[in-house]
């Protein structure tokens, strides 16, 4: 593996009335575990079902019902931990977090406060070529999701759907290592990418399958470094937690707003209250959730319905052995093996399906050309075609590899290749056969090209004179010959002949 050393990104500062301020951000990301059934019941996790149809009596907290853990959810949490280079705790335990809300029929959420299943790990968040922030992960624990309350169907009532109740979540808790709104978004993007590679969470933010609580505080330049040296939080400002956001854009807006709000308070001589806030995207501001303060005494205690969760090292090792190649390694390998730029490698590894497609094309043809064609032509074409994903691509890796091979063999020019690509995209078929059948083959026969060059020169004496005075204008002849041959002439051969014939 390549040993990559990164430079830390520049810390975002916000100018206050008196001086500059820095931001300190930590995140709790709730990622829905990809599983068929819920964490402690056999009800389905499927999104968009009839209300209250994916509900077992356990989820509805009927008296006497007992939770039985879904082993696959445990495996997914372990897999996620390994993917984030984190320690796995062979013994973990479940606790009850007590609060009352209509979409939480148990009156408590089963979570893991004292003994989480996953310990410390890290995520490398790239902010540009060679620039990255290493964000430390404090822990990951398994917990139940709550149900969904709908408030806008009736003026006096809230409607509750328990389909989501009891679905397994992984809460991924970072250290306060994120230093600006853009880094926060990049962190979520990277985390989402890793989870999707691992197959442990589909990362669908719109459906709420990935959402974040963001802790924001401000400090004076220099204070954060003292915190990092000592891990003593007293060097940092008081934090506020912005709850439950599932949009990258809103997360960034909320952080920016919240930081400015705190700066105004502190510079005005006031004190920031530690509290939970909500972001209102319509107003572009955060506001206090005061009514929840009273409920914040969660009275955690070990769940007596569940024995400690003990797993075996051998099982963890098996999961580790089955991990896929992760984004950082894949990107480094693409740069090393195929000679791709940092940017191209990042684009191609963003989604593992894209990376796999690219590799198939590259292995059937040439790495760098494959990267160009996949990124510029195929992605561009799919986007125009109703924003299709790579899995819906009408062009297969073998077909695209075939087109690239035809260019490399000199059978077709780059320009004709674009036409060929469009034909394959729209009609399908074998690229080399299409080239044969439709006479798209590049003319490499110098006699034929020479004739075309002679013809253009003979027909344009005025242009000849101009070009002889200013050789830069010779390109016009090349263009005319290409046009005359329907783009099939080899451009290099045409160029050479034009220069020779014009005596340049």
């Amino acid at each position, binding site marked *: 593996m390549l040993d990559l050393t990164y430079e830390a990104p520049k810390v975002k500062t916000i100018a206050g009335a008196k001086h500059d301020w820095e931001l300190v951000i930590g995140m709790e990301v709730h990622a829905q575990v990809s599983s068929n*059934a819920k964490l402690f019941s056999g009800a389905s996790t499927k999104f968009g079902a009839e209300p209250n149809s994916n*509900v077992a009596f356990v989820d509805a907290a009927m008296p006497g019902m007992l939770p039985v853990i879904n082993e696959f959810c445990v495996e997914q949490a372990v897999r996620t931990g390994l993917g984030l280079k984190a320690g796995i705790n062979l013994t973990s335990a479940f606790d009850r977090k007590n609060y009352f*809300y209509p979409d939480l029929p148990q009156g408590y959420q089963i979570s893991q406060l004292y003994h989480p299943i996953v310990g410390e790990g890290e995520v490398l968040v790239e902010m540009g070529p060679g620039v990255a922030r290493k964000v430390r992960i404090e822990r990951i624990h398994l917990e139940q999701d709550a149900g969904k309350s*709908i*408030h806008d169907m009736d003026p*006096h009532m809230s409607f*509750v759907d328990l389909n989501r109740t009891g679905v397994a979540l992984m809460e991924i808790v970072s250290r306060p290592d994120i230093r600006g709104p853009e880094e926060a978004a990049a962190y979520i993007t990277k985390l989402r990418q890793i989870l999707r590679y691992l197959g442990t969470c589909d990362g669908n933010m719109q459906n709420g399958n990935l959402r974040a609580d963001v802790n924001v505080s401000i400090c004076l330049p220099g204070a954060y470094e003292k915190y990092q040296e000592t891990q003593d939080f007293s060097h940092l400002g008081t934090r506020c937690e912005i709850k439950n956001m599932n949009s990258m854009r809103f997360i960034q807006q909320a952080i920016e707003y919240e930081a400015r709000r705190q700066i105004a308070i502190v510079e005005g001589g006031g004190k920031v209250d530690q509290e939970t806030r909500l972001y209102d995207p319509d107003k572009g501001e955060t506001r206090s959730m005061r009514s929840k303060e009273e409920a914040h005494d969660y009275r955690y205690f070990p769940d007596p319905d569940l024995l400690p969760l003990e797993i075996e090292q051998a099982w963890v090792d098996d999961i580790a052995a089955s991990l896929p190649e992760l984004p950082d390694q894949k990107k480094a390998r693409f740069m090393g093996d195929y000679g791709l730029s940092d940017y191209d490698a990042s684009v191609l590894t963003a989604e593992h399906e894209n990376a796999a497609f690219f590799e198939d094309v590259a292995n059937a043809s040439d790495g760098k050309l494959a990267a160009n064609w996949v990124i510029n032509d195929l992605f561009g074409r799919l986007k125009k075609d109703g924003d299709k994903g790579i899995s819906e691509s009408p062009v297969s890796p073998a077909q695209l590899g075939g087109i690239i091979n035809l260019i490399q063999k000199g059978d077709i020019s780059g320009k004709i290749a674009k036409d060929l690509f469009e034909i394959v995209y729209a009609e399908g078929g074998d690229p080399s056969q299409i080239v044969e059948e439709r006479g798209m083959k590049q003319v490499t026969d110098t006699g034929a090209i020479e004739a075309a060059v002679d013809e253009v020169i003979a027909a344009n004496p005025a242009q000849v004179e101009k070009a002889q005075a200013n050789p830069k204008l010779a390109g016009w002849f090349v263009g005319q010959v290409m046009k005359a041959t329907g783009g099939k002439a080899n451009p290099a051969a045409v160029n050479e002949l034009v220069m020779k014939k014009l005596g340049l």
Partner: protein
Amino acid sequence: MSIDENTAARVAKLARIKVEDDALPALAADFNRILGFIEQLNEVDVEGVEPMTSVTPMRLKRREDQVTDGHQQAQVLANAPDAREGFFAVPKVVE
């Protein structure tokens, strides 16, 4: 540790149990008796002893990741004081 009436009232509120003011002194006294018993247990030296979570050596029971339950909307809603269009209907709780 001693529980006063204010603490008793707060615990009752957190548990959503209505306790009349005149019942608070007795409740606080009950709490104190329970805590006194715990204090007594605390006198036992458990240095180096792992907390016991089960009287028999048992492994946490697991289930496979298969959908085996659900599709019982009517039963789930059967005890609800109010249900509409498949939802539990409760007094408005939005902030």
